[in-house]
């Protein structure tokens, strides 16, 4: 299947990717990760053999870039206590319940990713399954388990 002009691909998936990255790496890193994601996609684009699921493809790249960003952050020196905390502005998509999102971040990695894919990007279970590399049933279970845990701790 031929790919659409890259700009259309950006228009169709750019904001979903940004939403996912904001949820995964935070507002301050999201722009950089977004650019890394779409540059990587652009590089591979002309040779891409796609099955119609471009959203899944670009989210897989974004997922990897988010992991890279987490790792890079861990390697950075730990700021000392004397440096004042800069208040982190909560992104639009997460506004409302920052405490809840803190709980989401505390879930096991797979459940965390599944919950974000389901409720931040509004992905179907089939797409979540291909992103996480598991069966659709397992994706459904991860979302279910994650939400159940959130219900127990959030009350």
């Amino acid at each position, binding site marked *: 299947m031929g790919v659409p*002009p*890259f700009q259309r691909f950006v228009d169709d998936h750019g904001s979903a990717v940004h*939403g996912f990255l904001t949820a995964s790496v935070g507002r301050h890193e999201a*722009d950089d990760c977004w650019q890394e994601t779409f540059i990587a996609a652009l590089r591979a684009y002309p040779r891409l053999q796609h099955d119609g699921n471009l959203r899944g493809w670009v989210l897989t790249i974004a997922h990897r870039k988010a992991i890279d960003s987490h790792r890079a952050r861990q390697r950075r020196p730990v700021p000392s206590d004397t440096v004042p905390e800069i208040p982190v502005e909560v992104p*639009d998509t997460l506004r409302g319940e920052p405490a809840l999102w803190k709980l989401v971040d505390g879930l096991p990695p797979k459940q965390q990713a599944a919950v974000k894919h389901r409720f931040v990007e509004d992905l179907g279970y089939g797409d979540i399954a291909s992103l996480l590399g598991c069966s659709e049933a397992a994706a459904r279970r991860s979302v279910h388990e994650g939400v159940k845990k959130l219900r127990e701790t959030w009350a």
Partner: protein
Amino acid sequence: MTTVKADLLEQFAQRAEAEGLLDVAYAEVDSPLGTLLVARTPKGVVRLGFHNEDHEDVLEELAARISPRVIEAPAKLDAVRRELDEYFEGRLHRFTAKLDWTLTGQGFRHEVLKYTAKIPYGRTSTYMEMATKAGNRKAYRAAGNALGSNPIPVIVPCHRVLATGGGLGGYGGGLDVKERLLHLEGAL
């Protein structure tokens, strides 16, 4: 869900260019005719889409025939947009923007358009004359077809080519547009 910020998209286009990944840059340009679409490759202007063309189709065509790395990057088209503005104001008589002939292919069609590009501002020629210059006097009909499929109208001035009998001939952007451009140039 919020849309991606304009400055992030602009940075992205800049980065794409710096990494040699911007194969086709395009922008939409307001003109007295309506909204035009202008696209360029690193070689030069490759396509001008008229107001009456579906710009989505034009982008699809560019993706299929040149490269799918088609990105909206208005800054990359500033120079040619300025030239178009000045042309429509009657202040510019010769475009200096470099051209990329990829979409015209080789052979007769390319020859016809190459000679068309040389017709001076305010002058006109005929399909017959273009066919003759391109090496086949009898192929004036084919010359007409070549001009009808001109990928870079206005800048490659196919509007300056008229029917041999003195009629306007045809025009992809509509005969009213052809007439209007010739009026602007003082050729009618």
